[in-house]
């Protein structure tokens, strides 16, 4: 990796002036955050797909994961790559843009246009950096709810997402039960485990140990903690995979060579792959955003807000839930999903749960998983019937 004295990241431009629609909120519309801080003026950037129907009953909110963004199903303006969930969102997909109005907003604390540490404070003109208030999953959801208000939508037909997105789904269902008709928390948990906090702390320490982090003020000083952020990404990326998939894809294969070099060069394919993951990540993500959002996940413990009882978080809910986990996911193992399901059962909620067999690890929710597609399609279709939305043509079900 080249020594970084590079100009501000592309993502920093996206932070203040995103390639997405923005809703601005004035000081009088400040967000009161869990930390006690008040944030305002603030902005939220989002993408929409499909058409909102006349009675505004067909809106689906997609919640993105830690390093995702609002570009679910369109080319990403920073990377040029296709959207991160085109397997699930699009014409004829589970989240069918021909039937539903799909919304995805960049999370609060993110770096793609919603207020976060990479933004400039509109009041002072200075980059927020580490002066940005620490946010929680609930703060992220509060911000999304303000956006949904602005769009004139009362009840969301569905809120869906995986990993950190799934945490937002659970928070939505707990905080605004009457505004969520159906919920799909995937590959997630109702709290972040000690092991997950531990991995996040390793990542944060890698960022903060980079001299170019400059105590968080790198934007003002014209540096970027690329090495630290890349190491954080490399470590995290391992947790998104699984030992079997690493073995299947890489094994002990050497990278473009027939023998070890007896050096610390990237001899193994897996090393080369991780270095590439680290390199490409720093081109699109803000290091401070990474600190803030990992922190938001660490603080997440839904039951804690309800006297330690997760069932109490969902008491009396009428929301229909579909929970899914993946057998090889060790970041949010099936036991985490089962805990959610048990709580929903105890609360008398309508819940479906599938554990999907795969060796792809945590990232499976983003990948080509036919069982996930069939499950989500069945769930969404049944929910649409219950909501009185136009059902899929039966022929479509076999597609």
């Amino acid at each position, binding site marked *: 990796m080249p020594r970084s004295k590079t100009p501000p990241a592309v993502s920093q431009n996206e932070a203040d002036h995103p390639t997405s629609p923005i809703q601005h909120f004035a000081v009088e519309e400040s967000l009161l955050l869990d930390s006690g801080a008040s944030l305002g003026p603030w902005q939220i950037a989002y993408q929409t797909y499909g058409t909102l129907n006349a009675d505004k009953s067909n809106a689906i909110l997609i919640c993105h994961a830690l390093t995702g963004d609002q570009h679910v199903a369109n080319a990403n303006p920073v990377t040029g790559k296709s959207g991160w969930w085109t397997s699930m969102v699009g014409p004829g997909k589970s989240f069918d843009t021909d039937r539903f109005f799909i919304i995805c907003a960049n999370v609060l604390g993110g770096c793609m246009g919603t207020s976060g540490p990479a933004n400039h404070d509109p009041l002072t003109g200075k980059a927020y950096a580490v002066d940005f208030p620490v946010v929680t999953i609930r703060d992220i959801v509060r911000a999304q709810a303000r956006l949904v208000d602005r769009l004139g939508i009362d009840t969301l037909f569905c809120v869906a997402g995986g990993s950190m997105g799934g945490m937002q789904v659970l928070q939505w269902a707990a905080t605004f039960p009457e505004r969520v008709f159906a919920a799909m928390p995937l590959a997630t948990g109702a709290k972040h485990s000690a092991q997950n906090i531990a991995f996040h702390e390793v990542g944060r320490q890698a960022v903060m140990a980079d001299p170019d982090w400059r105590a968080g003020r790198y934007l003002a000083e014209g540096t970027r903690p690329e090495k630290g952020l890349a190491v954080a990404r490399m470590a995290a990326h391992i947790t998104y995979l699984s030992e079997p998939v690493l073995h299947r894809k890489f094994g002990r294969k050497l990278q473009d060579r027939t023998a070890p070099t007896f050096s610390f060069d990237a001899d193994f394919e897996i090393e080369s792959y991780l270095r590439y993951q680290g390199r490409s990540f720093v081109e699109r993500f803000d290091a401070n955003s990474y600190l803030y959002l990992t922190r938001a996940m660490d603080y997440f413990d839904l039951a804690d807000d309800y006297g330690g009882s997760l069932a109490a978080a969902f008491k009396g809910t009428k929301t*229909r839930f*579909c*929970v899914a986990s993946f057998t090889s996911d060790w970041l949010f193992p099936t036991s985490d999903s089962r805990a959610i*399901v*048990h709580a929903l*059962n*105890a609360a*008398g909620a*309508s*819940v*479906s*749960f*599938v*554990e*999907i*067999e795969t060796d792809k690890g945590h990232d499976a929710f983003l990948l080509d998983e036919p*069982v996930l597609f*069939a*499950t989500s*399609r*069945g*769930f969404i*279709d*049944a*929910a649409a*019937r219950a909501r009185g939305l136009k059902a899929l043509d039966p022929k479509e079900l076999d597609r």
Partner: protein
Amino acid sequence: MSEPLNQTAAAARVDLLLVAEMIERGARVLDVGCGDGTLLDLLIKTRNVDGRGIELSQAGVNGCVTKGLSVVQGDADTDLADYPDDGFDYVILSQTLQATRRPREVIEHLLRIGRRAIVSFPNFGHWRIRSQIAFQGRMPVTKNLSYAWYDTPNIHFCTIADFVALTDEMDATIEKAVALDRNGQPMRMTLPWAVWNLFGEQAVFMLKRGL
């Protein structure tokens, strides 16, 4: 929304229809071991119930969710403890009792979770089964119970008489009982238990906790 029972009858098994007839319209129902959701689907369509299911096999669960049923992957032996008291009007255990590790505990949970428990099971006291052991000296293999002894998932068979004895022991009340003959037809109610136990291939019981 709901269809009359006889319209879907042709496609459904007699034992499932029997269970369906026992259930009040619009009730809250939990089907434990719901398989591919055939019974739940029938109950929702014909009885307009608020139906939930638990199923062990991933294939079964996936099939149910794809049909739009609310079904969770779980094990009757371990996961019923997570359900609150009186959460349902009816809890159904259809053709699953013999495959549980601790049938008595499972039935206790059914009675705790539901105001009524409906249990159906193959009768191991049927004369064909008895005669296979008596005259061939071999573990019985029949059309309905087609597994060999070494690979059967059915580890806790009982007879109708055994089941009735257990309900007595558990202080549960039998509110309804039906035995089906080898043609799947309900047997006459007036017949004594011993006749049911000899000629009934399957039995369906509706239980209530307490005497």
